[in-house]
């Protein structure tokens, strides 16, 4: 008779290496999305501290960066 822990361990061992690799990548990318969100927040905060003509451009770049991070996350989710 197998214990539940043994069952889980067996199940985990049957999962392929690439699945773990994908999981690792997705976790890493979700952390990166959080970082990109912080960058948007930071760009906003910096723009409030010193306001000038280029702030909109920089904020736009921050949003593009966040968009790119989300896109790569979705691509990783679909392709891998």
């Amino acid at each position, binding site marked *: 008779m197998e214990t539940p822990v043994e069952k889980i361990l067996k199940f985990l061992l049957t999962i392929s290496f690439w699945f773990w690799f994908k999981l690792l*990548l997705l976790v890493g990318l979700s952390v990166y999305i959080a970082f990109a969100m912080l*960058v948007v927040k930071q760009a906003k905060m910096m723009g409030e*501290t*010193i306001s000038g003509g280029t702030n909109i451009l920089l904020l736009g770049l*921050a949003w593009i*960066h966040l968009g790119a991070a989300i896109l790569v996350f979705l691509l990783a989710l679909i392709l891998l």
Partner: protein
Amino acid sequence: MSEIFVASKRKLGTKRRLGFDRVTERLGREQSSVKSKIEKKKEIKVAEKCRLKNLLVSLRGFENPFGTYVRSPKVKFEAQGKDEEIILLIRSHWVTNVPWMLVSFLGIFVPFIWPFLPFAQFLPLRFQTILILVWYLLILGFAFENFLRWYFNVFIVTNYRVVDIDFYSLMYKEVSDAELDKIEDVTYRTGGIVRSFLNYGDIYIQTAAEKAEFDFQGAPKPGQVVETIQNLLERQI
């Protein structure tokens, strides 16, 4: 007979006079045309000069948004007074950005050597694609973060005070200021081949304010910055 001679002489005289008149008229016309041509050329030159002047004026009015040494910039900062005017805004010299720019630039070429690495052969193509995308995303984030930190770390001199705005990490900022009458000493330090050649250095301001010392690393034209502050201090006295 003599009368005939006199008459012929008179005729000759009138003919000569008429000829002279014509010549002088022609000369006058030519002179006036030459004068008008010269005047036209002068007018063209004056117009060109005016155009150049206007261009220079418009260029003087042009402000580089990414400038490191900006006089009377068209920006506003947090807690700026209504009658407070920014006289000088400085960022670190562009050369201080070279390390992260170089790293980012070299990072662009890393995926090109990727296929030659031994472990790359074992990775499936879809994983390789995603890893390359992740790599470029990391480079973009790294470069953008460094740029933001450089762009918003500024030192401002106004007609009332000096303001030092520092962003240390993602969410941590420090804004410190000292009124001009509390400034005790302004010094700058520069040295070395690169710093002397590109004219940048560190500025130190001793104050009697809450923050005893202000320092700004890698400031462009430090001599001029110090001179500006000293001029403002003299005006205060």
